[in-house]
């Protein structure tokens, strides 16, 4: 069965510092992986996705993620964090049996300090 683990519940970084949010997945085949961001009072917004091909994927807002099959990981990175990046971040894996649903991790809350 599909599952996603986000080991960090809460991360605090200084504005301008680099960021890495961890995500580990469990899936038998090649996974479809996603990172979403959720700001207070807002729905989930897709940052980036990985289906196949180049293991380093670029997303919106300057985010990127690297798929590492050997480590079952799909970590999200940003070289320089902005105060507006403070939000909840969710990693997700897609069910590929046609049910169209996503399995989400428990999320990582990012706090940005000036």
């Amino acid at each position, binding site marked *: 069965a599909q599952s*996603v683990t986000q080991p960090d519940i809460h991360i605090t970084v200084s504005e301008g510092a680099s960021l890495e949010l961890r995500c580990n997945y469990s899936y038998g085949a090649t996974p*479809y992986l996603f990172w*979403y961001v959720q700001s207070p*009072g*807002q*729905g*989930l*917004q*897709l940052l980036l*996705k990985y*289906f*196949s091909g180049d293991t380093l994927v670029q997303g919106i807002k300057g985010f990127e993620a690297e798929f590492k099959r050997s480590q079952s990981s799909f970590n999200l990175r940003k070289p320089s964090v902005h105060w507006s990046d403070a939000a909840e971040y*969710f990693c*997700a894996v*897609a*069910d*590929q*049996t*046609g*049910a*169209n*649903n*996503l*399995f*989400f*991790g*428990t*999320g990582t809350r990012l706090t940005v300090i000036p």
Partner: protein
Amino acid sequence: DAGVTQSPTHLIKTRGQHVTLRCSPISGHKSVSWYQQVLGQGPQFIFQYYEKEERGRGNFPDRFSARQFPNYSSELNVNALLLGDSALYLCASSFGLAGGFLSSYNEQFFGPGTRLTVL
């Protein structure tokens, strides 16, 4: 273009009552999915509807039901509310079903959610 809209924004109910949540997908989208997000957790899949038919169901009791209308809008109904049903309920729409093949994957766009509080 309008995104996914959900109503109401907030709702307070008492145990044993029932509730109906509504979702309007992005124009042209034919699939609607519902997710439950309990505080401190990630969203959990409840239902997916495509072309008015149920195409997927998560591990939720029969107290949860949904339907999709000819205009592709959707309702989520929850009967006999429990305290544990308190959550943010998210609706997501996509053009079609997400499949197992790259060429057919359809991105899901999420609405802002309905915050349900059960007292």
